[in-house]
């Protein structure tokens, strides 16, 4: 295992997953043995000291989330806690969890065992996007092998800890990736998000305390157990621990995944991805998928972690950059994002169900040159009114408003220029 690339260091160039024996040969599952000799509280403290922020998009501290999970017998009602590993990756521009699921399934299973133990969960589910068929079968094979080796099941390695782990293949719809919608889906319903509170740690799957962690977050856990909190923090360039599995796509010459220290800059990542393609000149970028506000060249040297991206008025999100060169219009990109979010809204909350299609139509009208000044006012109003958290059950609408609001604030002139005959970039005027 690489000391500096814990997440991807063991992956093979052809992405073929390891057998259990192969995984053990490179040190796999040693962390499970170690973790089961610790108490759940010690594990949470360790992950706390490592300062592991959740990699699903919001960057909430993993240890804090885990600490909310009540110990066995200390929550009302009957049943176990649940750990859910979220592998429903469908964010525009995100392609990292696919890699971890397909190429490194035992890393996910190993992390899930440890996280389940830390959260007092006797039942864990890895939810995987339907389209990731290779990932689904890789994880299923890894689970079967781990079960056969008593790394799962009853009295794991003689520790007294029992864990049932299974895969739930989903069947489309972006909203399934929202943690409360995912719980609704697992209970057999439509994937409609739920109001918080109760938070999943209070009442999640089947009303039991539930933790939902992203595939990447879970994949990091065994390494923290193996090498310690200090090592993990030292991997990072900032206060937030570890490496990050970044991605770069869009207008770059060699789009790719890049594991790098947390806090690596967009400039370095874009350079490693072969630099800006198209005109070769950067116009702007989204730091972590379709729902993250645009940043401009001035932010190329800002460390890409959750805190710094927030301070720069964007979000780290999934850490998978979408790069736009000067020849690519951010209005067009936002229009495509908005059409996506409008289509993927579950339709429960009115601002989202009604607001997103409206915003998408206006953005298309801007591209086509059929929009009016009043349409731009409506976009501004929509972003202002529906952007803040709390107006809807989940943050799909709020997330979608991020790029829209930044489009309007950073590229207001460009947006207005669309009123005069459509996209000026497409027409070669800019």
């Amino acid at each position, binding site marked *: 295992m690489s000391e500096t690339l814990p997440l991807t260091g063991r992956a093979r160039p052809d992405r073929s997953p390891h057998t259990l024996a192969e995984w053990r040969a490179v040190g796999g599952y040693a962390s499970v043995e170690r973790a089961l000799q610790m108490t759940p509280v010690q594990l949470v403290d360790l992950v706390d000291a490592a300062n592991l922020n959740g990699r699903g998009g919001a960057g909430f501290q993993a240890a804090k989330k885990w600490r909310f999970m009540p110990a066995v017998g200390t929550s009302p009602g009957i049943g176990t806690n649940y750990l859910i590993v979220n592998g429903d990756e469908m964010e*525009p521009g995100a392609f990292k969890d696919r890699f971890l699921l397909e190429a490194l399934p035992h890393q996910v299973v190993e992390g899930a065992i440890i996280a389940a133990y830390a959260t007092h969960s006797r039942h864990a589910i890895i939810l995987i996007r339907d389209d990731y068929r290779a990932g689904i079968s890789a994880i299923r094979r890894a689970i079967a092998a781990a079960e056969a080796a008593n790394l799962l099941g009853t009295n794991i390695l003689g520790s007294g800890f029992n864990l049932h782990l299974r895969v739930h293949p989903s069947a489309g719809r972006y909203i399934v990736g929202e943690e409360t919608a995912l719980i609704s889906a697992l209970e*057999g319903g439509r994937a409609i998000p739920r109001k918080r509170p109760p938070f999943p740690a209070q009442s999640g799957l089947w009303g039991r305390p539930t933790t939902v962690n992203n595939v990447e977050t879970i994949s990091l856990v065994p390494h923290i157990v193996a090498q310690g909190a200090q090592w993990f923090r030292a991997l990072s360039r900032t206060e937030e621990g570890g490496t990050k599995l970044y991605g770069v796509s869009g207008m770059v010459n060699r*789009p790719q995944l890049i594991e790098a220290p947390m806090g690596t800059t967009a400039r370095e990542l874009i350079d490693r991805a072969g630099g800006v393609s198209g005109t070769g000149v950067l116009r702007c970028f989204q730091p972590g998928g379709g729902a993250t506000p645009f940043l401009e060249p001035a932010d190329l040297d800002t460390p890409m972690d959750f805190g710094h991206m927030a301070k720069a008025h964007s979000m780290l999100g999934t850490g998978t950059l979408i790069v736009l060169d000067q020849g690519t219009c951010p209005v067009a990109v936002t229009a495509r994002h908005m059409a996506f979010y409008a289509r993927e809204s579950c339709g429960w909350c009115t601002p989202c169900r009604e607001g997103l299609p409206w915003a998408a139509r206006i953005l298309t009208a801007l591209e086509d040159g059929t929009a009016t000044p009043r349409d731009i006012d409506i976009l501004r109003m929509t972003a202002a009114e529906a952007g803040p958290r709390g107006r809807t059950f989940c943050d799909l609408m709020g997330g979608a408003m991020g790029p829209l609001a930044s489009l309007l604030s950073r590229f207001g002139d460009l947006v207005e220029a669309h009123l005069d005959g459509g996209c000026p970039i497409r027409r070669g005027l800019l």
Partner: protein
Amino acid sequence: MTLPEPLKSQILHAVAEDGGAKPAMLEALRLVQQAEGWVSDARLAQVADLLGVSTAELDSIATFYSLIFRKPVGQTVIMLCDGASCWMNGGDALRDALMDRLGIGYGQTTADGRYTLINSACVGGCDRAPALLIGPGRRLVGPLSPDGVAALLEGGL
């Protein structure tokens, strides 16, 4: 035609695994679709009956999840990414080439029943843009130029 035996036992196995009929509804639909390509009204009713849920409830699941097909699809389903990264890298030209070649639009099936074309959320292949998923294994293909469409459809890619 009643529900074939292997399907029946697969579904009942899912009920056991998922801890009940309700949480197993989606998997039951997936199993039907895996065996038959889509979920017909007759199958829906049979599965609802087997699970002891109402047809309406099962259909509310079937119609919510976009990858459960409630009408017949072609032998090969092509899911073309409509994410931004693919669009920047020529996704529209690829789309047009596919539609031209197949003579269909999104959501449609060729007259010979061979292909169905669907637009998809970002397929997690942004490093291979423009990309698509093809066939029952959802094989990721990309980057694919308009010129590559013919080869793809003839099984060359």
